[in-house]
């Protein structure tokens, strides 16, 4: 990307569509609009893996590596989108900022993972009209349908109250941290680096959520009952997190990925520590069944209705303007 393709915006449209000339002092963002030096976002946003060696290591099928990165990337992307729905809706400013930060960390992980997926297997990337400026990770994020998404179904659960948010973040980050702590030893140096960074970030997420779970459980009758109800509602999606998809088995065999079944005991023990500190019982509900005769679940591209609605909102602008310059 060079200075000659950066957008220059001198005229805006107001809500009624009227052209509005701005002088440099009438709004705090005018500097962003007229000063190329400060323009950093949109389709000009850099390739998140710029300059990173994305050669596929020996002994692994590039398609398996791509599919695996897509699974991990979709988990992070969909859950990030869910958490970002909390923006301006949290109980107080500190929690609002905390949730936005967690969503941002996951979005950063998603960009890297989806870019890695595209580099490993370019056939995964949806085709757009020639000349479209949309980068690969955005094509994957915005131009696939629900059946193409490989995230676990926990990531797509519609938001409930604040107790539901912290319960969901606790479950997700406990599971994910156990996987990423092992993924740092991946023979794929890109995945290993993404995991090493992710471990540091998700340690904060798990602690944040764990503290709130304890706080709500030890708070009032109302806060405790809401928390227990939230955990009970999410629990049917716990077992799916540790079921091994054939792609995960294949990349684990190749020393590239982690078989989630191998982290089930560790994740359970950690969650039990939180429950013990909170003085609540582990929920007992069984797992949510898959779909169809083969019992397909999130990793197979079979999702709950909630994902379709989430994607509709997340993707609509990008799909309306596949050649748009932002």
């Amino acid at each position, binding site marked *: 990307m060079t200075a000659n393709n950066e957008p220059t915006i001198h005229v805006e449209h107001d809500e009624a569509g009227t052209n509005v000339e701005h002088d440099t002092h009438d709004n705090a963002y005018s500097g962003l609009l007229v000063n190329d030096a400060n323009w950093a976002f949109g389709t000009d946003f850099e390739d998140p893996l710029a300059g990173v060696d994305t050669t596929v290591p020996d002994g692994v099928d590039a398609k398996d590596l791509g599919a695996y990165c897509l699974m991990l990337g979709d988990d992070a992307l969909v859950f990030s989108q869910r958490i970002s729905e909390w923006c301006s809706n949290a109980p107080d400013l500190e929690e609002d900022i905390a949730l936005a930060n967690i969503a941002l960390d996951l979005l950063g992980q998603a960009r890297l993972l989806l870019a890695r997926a595209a580099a490993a297997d370019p056939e995964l990337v949806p085709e757009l009209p020639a000349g479209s400026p949309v980068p690969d990770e955005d094509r994957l994020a915005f131009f696939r349908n629900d059946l193409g998404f490989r995230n676990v179904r926990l990531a797509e659960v519609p938001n409930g109250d604040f107790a539901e948010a912290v319960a969901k973040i606790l479950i997700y980050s406990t599971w994910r941290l156990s996987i990423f702590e092992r993924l740092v030893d991946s023979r794929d140096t890109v995945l290993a680096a993404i995991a090493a*960074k992710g471990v540091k970030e998700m340690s904060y997420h798990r602690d944040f959520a764990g503290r709130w779970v304890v706080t709500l459980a030890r708070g009032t009758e109302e806060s405790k009952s809401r928390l227990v109800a939230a955990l009970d509602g999410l629990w049917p999606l716990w077992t799916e997190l540790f079921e091994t998809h054939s792609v995960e088995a294949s990349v684990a065999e190749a020393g590239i990925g982690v078989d989630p079944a191998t982290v089930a005991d560790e994740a359970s023990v950690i969650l039990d520590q939180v429950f013990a500190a909170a003085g609540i019982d582990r929920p007992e509900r069984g797992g949510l069944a898959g779909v169809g005769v083969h019992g397909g679940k999130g990793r197979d591209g079979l999702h709950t209705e909630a994902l379709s609605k989430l994607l509709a909102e997340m993707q609509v602008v990008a799909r309306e303007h596949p050649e748009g310059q932002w």
Partner: protein
Amino acid sequence: MTAMLETSPTDTRTADMDTRTTDTAAEAIDRAWAAAERVTDPEMPMLTLLDLGVLRDVTIEDGHVVTIITPTYSGCPAMATMRDDLQRELLLAGFPDAEVRVSLTPAWTSDWITERGKKALKDAGISPPGAAPRNSGPVALTLMPTRRAVTCVLCGSDDVRLSSEFGATACKAMYQCNVCLEPFDHVKEI
């Protein structure tokens, strides 16, 4: 426009960008470093990228400058701005085609913030990080508030409380002093 930098310290040439007439490889790299070192963090402009530990290396490969940067957080939204700022500063120093590469490993740690950087943070009213935790083995679950040796940036009291582990940028937590009531940011140990 292509930079034609010398690879031999004894050669001389006429620069095509400006009026410099001699530029040995050693001088070129010094000039490139000096330019890269001037670039500041877009979100914490009191810190240079070098003092933040984001700027990892500046080299000259095949006649063009290559700088290596490492993101502080996966979702750091400032990476593109950092890249643009580096390229602009290097352009002004006579290196029109500088390349900025991202290095993800080793992962950035707050330990890479230099002593000068920590002082610059403190002078700007931001509490600098202590030593980052060294993880060997599984990451410990911490259900009590993180204990840090943080002192108030305004009055120096150590009677402070953590108001949130997450702040205005991904790399900061929020504190408040119990004595003078000053709220302030603390750069997290990571």
